[in-house]
């Protein structure tokens, strides 16, 4: 790693000032204030070792909107990785081909390792069940588009044990003032105890609920995540929980008028499609916000 090399690996590494700066830059791009030439002549290597639709395409779109070009890894099967090359060697080689690397990898910590051997900036595009900072930043950005990032009651619903997006979001929100987190999860899928301890150390108020009805009228933001069938001991238990946790227009009648509903997508059955047309449904805006937020991240690490 070169001196002053700027990586974006985890929200744990970022202070509030850095996050706010990126969100403000994203707002500038979102509101058409970019030139479209910020990264003219630059190349972004997109190394995705796992399937991805939104992250991969929105990083590519963001780079093109800044005037830069994309170098894609392609399918893993057609590369030296299939021959047994280590990630470290791949990153060292690709460092010579591009001005920055976006990495998605199935192993936790892969992006940090990559940043240690790369000679160009590395952005973590998601590593296993670990960190996914661009998702967290676009989640924060979407909230900030609706309300200031303070005095917020946010409900996090779904698989809170294994869902990396909610872990990172909870951690990022801990950097803001007067945030209350309401966890709404079936037994066994609540936040891991280590994350609860982290949040407690950071002074975040965490309130656990069995059902959404217990806290819905208090919420300013409801963040829903996908329940994965394979996390449940048996299919009947899954079906029971899935029906309980479904967000419907009828349920949302008890919410504050300005509450917003977010979801990192893809959704399955957690949100009734009839919710899509309600003013509170912000999850497709959230997905679209991935482009300006990733433009801000790419510009941050590659600007002169």
């Amino acid at each position, binding site marked *: 790693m070169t001196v002053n090399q700027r990586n974006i690996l985890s929200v744990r590494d970022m202070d509030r000032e850095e996050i706010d700066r990126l969100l403000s830059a994203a707002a500038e791009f979102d509101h058409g204030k970019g030139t479209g030439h910020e990264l003219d002549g630059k190349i972004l290597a997109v190394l995705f070792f796992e399937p991805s639709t939104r992250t991969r395409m929105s990083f590519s779109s963001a780079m093109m909107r800044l005037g830069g070009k994309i170098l894609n890894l392609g399918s893993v099967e057609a590369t030296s990785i299939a021959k047994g090359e280590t*990630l*470290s060697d791949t990153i060292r080689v690709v460092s010579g081909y591009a001005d920055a690397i976006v990495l998605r990898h199935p192993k936790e*910590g892969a992006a*940090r*390792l990559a940043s240690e051997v790369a000679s160009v900036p590395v952005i973590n595009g998601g*590593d*296993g069940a670990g*960190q996914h900072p661009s998702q967290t930043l676009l989640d924060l950005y979407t909230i900030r588009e609706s309300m200031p990032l303070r005095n917020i009651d946010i409900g996090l619903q779904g698989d809170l044990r294994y869902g990396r997006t909610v872990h990172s979001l909870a951690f990022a929100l801990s950097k803001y003032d007067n945030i209350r987190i309401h966890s709404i999860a079936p037994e066994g899928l609540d936040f891991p105890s280590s994350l609860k301890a982290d949040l407690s150390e950071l002074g975040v108020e965490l309130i656990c609920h069995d059902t959404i009805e217990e806290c819905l009228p208090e919420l300013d933001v409801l963040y829903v995540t996908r329940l994965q069938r394979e996390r449940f001991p048996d299919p009947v238990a899954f079906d029971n929980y899935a029906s309980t946790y479904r967000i419907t227009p009828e349920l949302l009648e008890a919410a504050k008028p300005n509450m917003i509903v977010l979801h990192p997508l893809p959704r399955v059955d957690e949100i009734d499609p009839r919710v899509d047309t309600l003013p509170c449904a912000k999850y497709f805006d959230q997905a679209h916000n991935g482009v300006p937020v990733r433009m801000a991240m790419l510009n941050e690490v590659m600007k002169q």
Partner: protein
Amino acid sequence: MTKPEKTLVISPIQRGTVIDHITPGEGLTVINILGITRGTGVTVTVACNVESSRGGRKDLVKIADRELLKEEVDKIALVAPDATISIIRDYRVVDKKTVSVPQEIVGVITCPNPNCITNTKEPVPTRFAAQTRGFRCRYCDTVISLDKDIGNYI
């Protein structure tokens, strides 16, 4: 009845390092942590469960012809926080120090997360930061809390 004469369990060394007051049962783990294993050519003596002058039992390690540096021996504080290190020259103790857990422990602890990048073929040593609640993996953020026996992860 006369008091039995004290006898040496293991012989003194002319030059090298003595690690004393190791938690009973951790002597071999200490050797492992220091990387003094097969093929190094270093003469090592390990005594397990010997009587301690502080009362109770202890393990003891003597390493001939090698003076360990503080940063080397600090690693053993993970399993033997009460250990003392004596540097020996001409059968005399010329320096004596205690151990303290370093801020970052490199290449000693195995990350318990099977999906951590350090548990792959990547040529990278594990790195754990010592924090108030335990030891945090630099790569995957897994925390080994203080109530766990860290010896199980070495």
